[in-house]
């Protein structure tokens, strides 16, 4: 046990407690509350009925009014804690409510109806999960098809992004050629074009290529992301050139240098980009919405948004499906983040 304590309290290198450790743990715990708290709440909310979602003040967990079958009544009755005139309180079932007066009965003595002002009663509630938020969409919503489309788009786009971006980043970080700075500038420069701005021209381009209503129309415009090139290039700058020289001496072609030396060494940055790409493509909404108008081709996010109407949004479904659609990306993240480890490029040197 003391071993655990020592482990918990150790700082870099295993020496005694340092003020930075205090800061670290405060930060982490604070982070847990702030970053993760809303998530917990999101998951909790995804199990709420529409009525509970609209309820003030909100609760962390989904609650439903407790009901009870009482002899003599067909339907189960809702239970309330009633404050009786004598000051005591008691659990009673509501038979009906007329205006501000409720007719209540004691479940143990279902005969006598007692009239109670509704201000004097509180519903008895228990945690209840509205699992239909999850099950309903699976029935009405072509979940598996959307999932397949999403997976296809995400996987393809990520692979192509990683490949083309890393190739470009390699060229921009390890070769000296005329126009390099200009190319870099061009790429970084276009980083700032928000999609919404070029939406219409892009639509014309995609349509000119006959890519409307095609998953490739979703994939291709997103893969040349300047962010990726920029990110990878900056990382590749830190790979020692000697390593490349050594490979050249080893008869490696430039492709092999890229593929076998630079790519593995850039693994941390690639992992970061892969995570981003997966998250982005998975969550992409606006662009697929523009390109895809047939439901066979919908991705999950687009499908999900059919719950957003003009006057009404069916948040209970959207939340539940958000939770479901998040699971794969969380898994991808957990898998890929392991590659964000110490840069090892230096360890091959003196």
């Amino acid at each position, binding site marked *: 046990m003391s071993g655990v304590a020592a482990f918990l309290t150790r700082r870099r290198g295993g020496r005694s407690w340092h003020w930075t450790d205090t800061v*670290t743990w405060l930060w982490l715990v604070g982070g847990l509350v702030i970053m993760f708290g809303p*998530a917990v709440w999101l998951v909790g909310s995804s199990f709420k009925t529409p009525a509970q979602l609209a309820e003030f003040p909100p609760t962390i967990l989904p609650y439903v009014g407790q009901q009870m079958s009482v002899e003599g009544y067909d339907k189960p009755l809702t239970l309330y804690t009633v404050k009786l005139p004598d000051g005591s309180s008691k659990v009673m079932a509501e038979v009906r409510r007329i205006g501000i007066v409720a007719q209540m009965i004691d479940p143990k003595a279902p005969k006598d109806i007692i009239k109670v002002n509704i201000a004097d009663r509180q519903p008895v509630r228990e945690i209840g999960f509205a699992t239909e938020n999850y099950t309903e969409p699976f029935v009405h919503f072509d979940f598996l098809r959307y999932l397949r489309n999403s997976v296809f788009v995400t996987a393809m786009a990520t692979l192509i992004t990683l490949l083309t971006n890393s190739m470009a980043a390699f060229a921009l970080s390890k*070769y000296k050629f005329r126009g390099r700075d200009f190319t870099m500038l061009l790429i970084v420069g*276009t980083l700032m074009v*928000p999609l*919404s701005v070029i939406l219409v021209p892009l639509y014309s381009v995609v349509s000119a290529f006959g890519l409307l209503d095609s998953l490739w129309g979703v994939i291709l415009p997103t893969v040349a992301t300047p962010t990726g090139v920029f990110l990878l290039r900056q990382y590749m700058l830190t790979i*020692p050139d000697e390593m490349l020289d050594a490979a050249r001496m080893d008869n490696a072609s430039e492709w092999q240098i890229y593929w076998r030396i630079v790519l593995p060494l850039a693994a941390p940055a690639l992992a970061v980009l892969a995570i981003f790409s997966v998250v982005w493509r998975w969550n992409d909404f606006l662009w697929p919405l523009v390109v895809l108008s047939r439901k066979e081709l919908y991705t999950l996010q687009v499908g999900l948004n059919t719950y957003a109407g003009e006057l009404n949004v069916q948040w209970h479904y959207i939340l539940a499906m958000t939770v479901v659609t998040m699971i794969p990306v969380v898994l991808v993240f957990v898998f890929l983040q392991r590659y964000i480890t110490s840069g090892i490029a230096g360890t091959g040197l003196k």
Partner: protein
Amino acid sequence: MAAFFLAPNMAIFGIFVLVPLVINFFYSATSGTAYFLQDRSYVGLEQYQRLLDCSNYLDTATCREDLFWKAVHNTGLFVIVQVALLTVVSMATALILNREIIGRSFWRAVFFFPVLLSPVVTGLIWRWILQRQGLLNMIVHDFGGEPHNWLTDRFWAFTAAVSVSVWAHMGFYTLILLAGLQAIPRDLYEAAEMDGTRPARVFWRITLPLLMPNLLVVIVLALIRAVQIFDEVYVLTGGGPGTSTLYLTQYIYEIGFASLLRNPGLASAASILMGLVLVVLTLVQLQVGRRGERKGARQ
């Protein structure tokens, strides 16, 4: 050789980014509600004139497109505060996650988690937390505080917009910085430790300069994305109270797409003006960064 490696990316990039961008320029020189260039009428620089028509750029009320300038002002302030806060918070988190803490992957996931949420859901969660009868007020109330209407108060709505966008995106930048931190050779820290360097000084003199290339990525991306901030704030505050959190992209979106009588020409012109400002900002940063990069050159 360089051309070979650049080709695939540049081809896709050219077709799907550059070409639309160029088309966009043509848009800004036309007017009408039609979406396709051939259906639109050429007006030259009229859209720009309209946007820039202002007798005092500091007083938005004097501008013809007062909402545009309102959005410009708001965005300017937002970008400064948000980028600064985002950078600092991501940096702090990255530094902490870079330490040898137990459950490193768990903590990474915690801080990265919000990035996984779609902006709409992010905005929504926080609106539910911050609204008059939201979770926050409930907590404040439970602790005996005075509940506050966070989203209808100018200051708090702005604070909320900044904080929520930081909340939503910091995981992204933390990850970039983390990868950069891990690439700094360990022996340099050891050398610094032997040199008796205090932690703060290690940060300023060793970590920060060596992290410069990555920090540059972070600042450039953060800045660009801050200027483009939209979905989460749109859902959270809708630009309110009044127009105090109305940002450029929302303005462009509304005139270009959302309203029933759209004006794509004006939207294009506004976005090009915004792009120009960004190009200038980025150039400045890259210039500064290049100096830093040279500094960070490996031994």
